[in-house]
């Protein structure tokens, strides 16, 4: 028989006490936003294909609708349809942003961010700015998918189209985050509101069908929809036309959504618990 004699040891590595002698320093708001943005990009960087999930619906629409489009005297119907699909993808993707936050609220990681010294406004802005990344990637995927068909690629117009969509995407992302914060751990509230909100926005923007023959009340409702002006601007830009009034109206609609979204989002985030 052997008897093992053990001693009480200082076994655990002393890592709760830092070996690297560094002091945490105050972080400015720009660095705060940068840190939040960098964290948001991590899942995309680690798994780039995840960006494509929000695109399933628009790509299905593209595949099933495009063959049904009639030839128009003014040119290819695809040329008319694609900018709408790009806008729709931006709408879908940005409106889903809050779903990630909902998940973080339920799992507890959002609580950790709320207690950290990161400014609440930076939390909201950093998360919203993330929307630029899927916007660019998704637009490129759509353009590449349709380029072999009856679709002219106007690089300047496409870049302009993306620029016009950026404030809209960021603002809508912020609204989606605000919704998730308001829904708290009841994720179903988020989904119900999100699903209810996007389809009227989509249909009243003339994305799938032209609004030309619509009755008066529908026209009025569409006139109040900022996405409608954005889609018109996208159509002009993607066609390589640059009518200033249409583009300015689109940009204005986009900036209004951006500013309003960020304002509401920051307010919601400041009150988050």
């Amino acid at each position: 028989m052997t008897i093992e004699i053990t001693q009480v040891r200082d076994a655990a590595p002393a890592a709760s006490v830092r070996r690297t002698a560094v002091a945490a320093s105050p972080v400015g708001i720009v660095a705060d936003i940068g840190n939040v943005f960098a964290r948001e990009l991590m899942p995309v960087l680690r798994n780039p294909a995840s960006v494509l999930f929000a695109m399933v619906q628009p790509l299905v629409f593209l595949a099933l609708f495009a063959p049904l489009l009639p030839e128009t005297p003014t040119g290819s119907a695809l040329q008319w349809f694609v900018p709408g699909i790009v806008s729709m993808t931006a709408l879908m993707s940005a409106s889903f942003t809050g779903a990630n936050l909902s998940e973080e609220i339920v799992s507890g990681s959002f609580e950790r961010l709320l207690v950290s010294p990161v400014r609440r406004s930076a939390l909201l802005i950093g998360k919203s700015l993330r929307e630029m990344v899927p916007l660019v990637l998704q637009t490129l995927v759509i353009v590449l998918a349709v380029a072999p068909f009856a679709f002219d690629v106007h690089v300047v117009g496409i870049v302009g189209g993306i620029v016009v969509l950026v404030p809209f995407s960021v603002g809508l992302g912020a609204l989606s985050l605000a919704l998730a914060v308001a829904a708290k751990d009841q994720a179903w509230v988020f989904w119900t509101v999100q699903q209810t909100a996007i389809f009227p926005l989509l249909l009243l923007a003339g994305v799938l069908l032209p609004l030309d023959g619509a009755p008066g009340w529908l026209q009025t409702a569409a006139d109040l929809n900022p996405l409608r002006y954005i889609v018109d601007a996208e159509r002009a830009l993607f066609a390589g036309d640059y009518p200033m009034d249409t583009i300015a109206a689109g940009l204005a609609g986009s900036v209004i959504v951006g500013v309003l979204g960020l304002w509401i989002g920051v307010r919601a985030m400041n009150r988050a618990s």
Partner: protein
Amino acid sequence: MRNHEKKPVIRTVGLTRHYTRNKQTIEAGRGLDLEIAPGELVAFLGPNGAGKSTTLRMLTTLIAPTAGTAEVAGYDVTRDRAAVRRSIGYVGQGNAAGHQYRGRDELFSQARAHGLSRRDARSRTDELLDAFDLTEHADRPVSRLSGGQRRRLDVAIGLVQEPAILFLDEPSTGLDPQNRVNLQEQVRRLNAKLGTTIVLTTHYLEEADALAGRVIVIDHGRTIADDTAAALKSSLGDLVSLEFGSAAHAMAGAAGADRIPGAHVTVTDTVVSVRAPFGRDAAPGLVADLAAAGTPVTRLEVVGPTLDDVFLNLTGRSLRESNETASAVDAADIAGDQNEGAAA
């Protein structure tokens, strides 16, 4: 620095929090008065729903008190939230690491959020992964870690910036015994080497005893005891169970056990149960004496007091009863709902 030695680093006055649920008011915190000095290691001990998390969430600025005030690191938790947040670390009851992220990335981003340079953030990340045995799990999505691995990651994230004040809400939930010991070691070191003030919650008197100098027992949103674990325990004593070869031996054993100071002895068939302060110290002598007297003990068990014992002693209710009163309300709710359903 706004706080000097001795001045409490956490102070609450009448801290109260109500929740409204189904038009009913739940008093999760009922006028807590607390003072915690710099460098103290304090455990909040209490049953489910006692209000431990609610109190921590008020102290960490996550929720606003319904009434009363609290100061943490010299700053008011409602007026000076940003300053409080800069002074504290917090490990909540949920997961600190986002499930879609990787452990390494989450540690790194937390370090960056606290203003560490990229280089320092990277080395601090490696250090913590090593300390919590997580290095080999660091590059997988958090959703694919085991419960205990995830919990270790949560605690590691809370320690990134070596906060002056650290709040841990049930840090040891889901940890195996070895990791539990490692966690306790990390917490003690942080407290001893850096003088970090630590407030943690637990359901286990053993853990409170192993870790904390001071134990605050919370029940229904109120402090019902505030003492050292040793004092809470010694007033209760250990439970010593002695088994004998026959009922006659057991009677002789009971008579012997009754001579231990403060002993409360019960006999069931061939088993003698002795509840006595310092029972574990008295047991070896008793066993030897009984063997010498020809009534040998055939089996011996010594159990220290549990949360349940402390609770029973303090409130006259066992935890089970306490939980039953709590869930009786819920059950009444449900019954009410069903009746309404039947009536409709």
